[in-house]
């Protein structure tokens, strides 16, 4: 089932400059050096720091990281949804050759039908006062599409998510379950015919049984419509399932980026490893041996010098405090920002091949 | 410690500065309105047989024919030199008058607040821990009725009962605390009672709902899971978290108490700022009017600063700056 992803393997050979290596020219979305700073009570807080990545058409990029690592901020920055007050966005976001920052209001509106977003909490992403069919058709209405066509497209979008208009007719969001709401949210995004959807933790608030539905649904639609997805999640198992490529964020920076296989089987960055080891695996045959040493998270507002992970890193050495590691190509195809990357396979990771 | 103190000072400073536009707007509006008001102090000084020409002459002698902004700037300039002017008619220093009268109003207001707190909060605590009980139901009904009686009705009714029919309490007048503490209590009783009726009910309602909300908090559940006695939970885990809300209400109620003091003071002839400003409005005593308005704004700003600082004291999460 991982057929599409293989076509998009990163072309490492041509890269001369490490920085450019995982970036490509034919990408649908190009993000270069994106930084977001919030001003909080007079202090500047860097939420996202020099992040660059690409998303090719039809590709799914997974963004993982701890809470507060800037995942949501990146997602919103791409769609220009960050609050205007007290926020500064630098860098360069290019969609289909257009620089998003320079767009006029009407061009931006046009582009918004190509770039869509799905939120974490499906219910709160709906206006509780509006009827579901209006919510789904809202994007079309804003685009000024005539009613007949609108209804038809709403029908189509609802069909795609396995619902029908008769099911939603005259109802309000709170009359639906979480899973249904998330499907409606997907339908809303689909209705305008997007090419790329930013999914900000779309399954985090769902129960396992419902989560599976939504993940499958997203996969089906992605395949059918050749959608590109940016899939934000802190659940590594989910990201593993949906993504072609994965970017690992730590304190506003990408510490490792590469194909899912590379990242999960041969994580190079110690942080990635730490993350993977922490994931609870539903496998009772493996008795877990507790480790007791508490790790101390570094301050987000005053990050340590050099590598930001060094205080928690088992491999940290003097240089980590002095020189900030840059993203560099790793033997298994991914890029990691570490002076002392791992190159052995992740312990305890059973891959399909190995099983 | 020093740094903490400094940050408090700074926080106070910042808030005081923020109060300045409000102060300017209110006092300027007062000047503007007073110049539009029909009638004038000159009319009152000269008496009913004065001609319009005589009145105009006196008005211009006092500078009341100047354009609004000139008058306002003049007033502001004198204010900056610490001169609040003198009362129109008795030539008392407005500043002194203000201090004397405000002391009276404050005594009444603070006592009323104290009485209301002492009545309202403990009852709220009691009923919040036994919701739906008979005391709760009764107090709920009583407090909502009490909240619905306008102050002026309370004043009339209590005045009628206690001063006119029963003659237990003085119908009018004032003795200051420094002159005669016991007499002061006797005179202060009725005004305080009138203001407390509403306030006690208000404090009761607000703190009850706050207590009820806090009793649903997870940390109260945790405390119950620890098997702690209810009394202890209420005192230690509920009272303090509820106090910011109570504090807010105390701040807000100052405005109510000041507004209430207009009615209470003028009905019971208590020499506070409420009655004074009513007199000043009807007799066009502009210096007094301006001074009292400025005072109310300053009180408002100060109260909000105090409330903010109070939050910082009560709630460890709040940072003064």
């Amino acid at each position, binding site marked *: 089932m*991982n057929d599409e992803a293989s076509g998009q393997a990163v072309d490492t050979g041509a890269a001369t400059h490490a920085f450019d290596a995982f970036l490509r020219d034919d990408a649908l979305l190009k993000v270069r050096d994106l930084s977001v700073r919030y001003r909080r009570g007079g202090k500047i807080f860097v939420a996202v720091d020099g992040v660059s990545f690409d998303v090719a058409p039809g590709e799914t990029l997974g963004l993982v990281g701890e809470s507060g690592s800037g995942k949501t901020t990146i997602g919103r920055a791409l769609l220009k949804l960050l609050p205007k007050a007290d926020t500064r966005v630098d860098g360069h976001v290019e969609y289909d050759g257009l620089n998003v920052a320079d767009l006029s209001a009407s061009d931006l509106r046009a582009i918004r039908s190509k770039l869509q977003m799905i939120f974490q909490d499906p219910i709160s992403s709906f206006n509780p006062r509006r009827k579901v069919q209006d919510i789904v058709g809202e994007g079309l209405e804003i685009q000024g599409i005539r009613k007949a066509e609108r209804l038809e497209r709403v029908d189509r979008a609802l069909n795609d998510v396995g619902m029908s208009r008769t099911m939603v007719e005259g109802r309000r969001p709170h009359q639906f379950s979480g899973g249904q709401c998330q499907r409606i949210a997907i339908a809303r995004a689909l209705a305008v015919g997007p090419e790329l959807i930013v999914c900000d933790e779309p399954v985090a608030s769902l129960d396992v049984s419902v989560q599976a539905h939504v993940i499958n649904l997203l996969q089906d639609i992605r395949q059918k419509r050749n959608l590109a997805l940016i899939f934000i999640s802190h659940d590594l198992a989910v990201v593993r399932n949906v993504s072609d490529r994965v970017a690992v964020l730590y304190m506003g920076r990408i510490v490792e980026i590469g194909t899912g296989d590379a990242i999960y089987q041969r994580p190079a960055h110690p942080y990635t490893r730490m*993350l993977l080891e922490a994931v*609870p695996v539903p496998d*009772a045959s*493996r008795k877990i041996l507790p*480790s007791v040493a*508490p790790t101390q998270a570094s301050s987000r507002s005053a990050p340590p010098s050099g590598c930001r992970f060094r205080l928690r890193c088992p491999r940290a050495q003097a240089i980590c405090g002095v020189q900030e590691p840059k993203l560099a190509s790793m033997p298994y195809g991914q890029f990691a920002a570490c002076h002392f990357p791992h190159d052995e396979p992740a312990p305890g990771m059973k891959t*399909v091949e190995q099983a | 410690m020093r740094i903490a103190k400094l940050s408090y000072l700074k926080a106070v400073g910042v808030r005081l500065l923020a109060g300045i536009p409000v102060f300017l707007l209110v006092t300027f509006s007062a000047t503007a309105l007073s110049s539009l008001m029909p009638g004038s102090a000159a009319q009152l000084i000269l008496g009913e047989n004065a001609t319009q020409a005589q009145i105009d002459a006196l008005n211009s002698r006092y500078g009341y024919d100047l354009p609004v902004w000139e008058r306002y700037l003049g007033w502001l300039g004198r204010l900056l030199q610490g001169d609040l002017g003198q009362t129109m008619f008795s030539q008392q220093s407005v500043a002194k008058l203000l201090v004397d009268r405000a002391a009276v109003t404050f005594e009444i207001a603070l006592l009323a607040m104290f009485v209301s707190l002492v009545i309202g909060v403990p009852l709220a605590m009691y009923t919040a821990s036994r919701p739906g009980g008979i005391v709760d139901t009764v107090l709920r009904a009583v407090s909502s009725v009490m909240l619905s009686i306008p102050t002026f009705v309370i004043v009339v009714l209590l005045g009628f009962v206690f001063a006119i029919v029963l003659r237990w309490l003085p119908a009018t007048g004032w003795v200051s605390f420094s002159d005669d503490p016991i007499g002061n209590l006797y005179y202060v009783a009725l005004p305080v009672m009138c203001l407390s009726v509403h306030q006690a009910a208000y404090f009761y309602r607000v703190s009850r709902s706050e207590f009820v909300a806090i009793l649903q908090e997870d940390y109260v559940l945790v405390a*119950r899971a*620890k098997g702690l006695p209810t009394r202890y939970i209420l005192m230690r885990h509920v009272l303090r978290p509820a106090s910011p809300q109570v504090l807010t209400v105390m701040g807000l109620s100052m405005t109510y108490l000041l507004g209430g003091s207009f009615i209470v003071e003028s009905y019971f002839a208590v020499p506070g700022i409420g009655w004074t400003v009513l007199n000043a409005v009807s007799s066009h005593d502009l210096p007094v009017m301006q001074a009292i308005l400025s005072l109310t704004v300053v009180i408002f700003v100060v109260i909000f600063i105090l409330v903010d600082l109070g939050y910082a004291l009560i709630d460890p999460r709040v940072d003064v700056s």
Partner: protein
Amino acid sequence: MTEAANTTPVLDCHELSCHFRSPFGPIRVLHDVSFSIPPRTTLGIVGESGAGKSMLVKTIMGIAPEGMKTSGRILADGTDLSTLNETKRRAFLGRKFGMVFQNPMTSLNPFVRVGRQIEEASRFHLRLGKAQAKALAIELLASVGIPDAAECYGHYPHQFSGGMKQRIMIATALACQPDLLIADEATTALDVTVQKEILDLLQVIQQQRQMSMILVTHNLGIVAGRTDDILVLYGGHVVEYGPTNTVFSHPRHRYTEALLSAMPRMDQPAHTKLHTIPGRPPDLANPAPGCPFAPRCPAAEARCHASMPPMTTSADGKHRFACYVPVQTGDAADTAVERRALS
């Protein structure tokens, strides 16, 4: 299960049922839940949201929301709780059981110094003096891995990160040397790395202090490898109850099986189609007469819709499940037990 001299179960629940009154009739959130926890063992309680996990542990702790009616018997360390009056029961439970709640952000009182919150239970139940209690609190703080415990004693909760708060909560729950520690989704609100730390900590502490523990969670991954027994709740019913290893390797109830296969796994390649469970969780207000899972169950038969399947015990007697058409394992035959006769 662990061998021990004292084998009186720390907690023993018999046919615990709970319901709320509502304008549309009673809402039953728990149906005849029975289980027991021997000393020094860990029980995992799993189930989807709304399955009644929290209600179960809250009922045990005697802190269920007002308006809930409970029936059934709870024995704590051999004492029947119904013989104690309200105050005594709460005090007894407060001493015997410690509880850690889901959200560390809201379960510590932001207005009270953490030291105080840790020591207060010990001061009441163990009648410790001020200094003693403080020493104990500092010791507890240190034991849950808080650096500079003595200094942190006087801090307020907001000065700690989420993980640290949860450690403090654990310290709070340990104050009276409880026999049983109940962690209700204690790690749900935390990041994966922190979650792991907390789970590890719980495990270490449980072993050090020879306590029993209940881990409540909706994430099957958490109980795997960390618990001795596992209890699967669905719609307020116990659908499966047995040793963790067995339940994971050979789930018998259809729901448990479906749940396990619905989880995305890291050892599968990208874009693997997940198995889904059709339908939606049961509506507690309008319960169907049969098995609560029947409407979603691929193997449901007519009788599944008609009546609640009885608790069935597997051949070894340790694994129980309530299903008419259990997943077959090829092991020895199961025995249906009379529900009333259970334990």
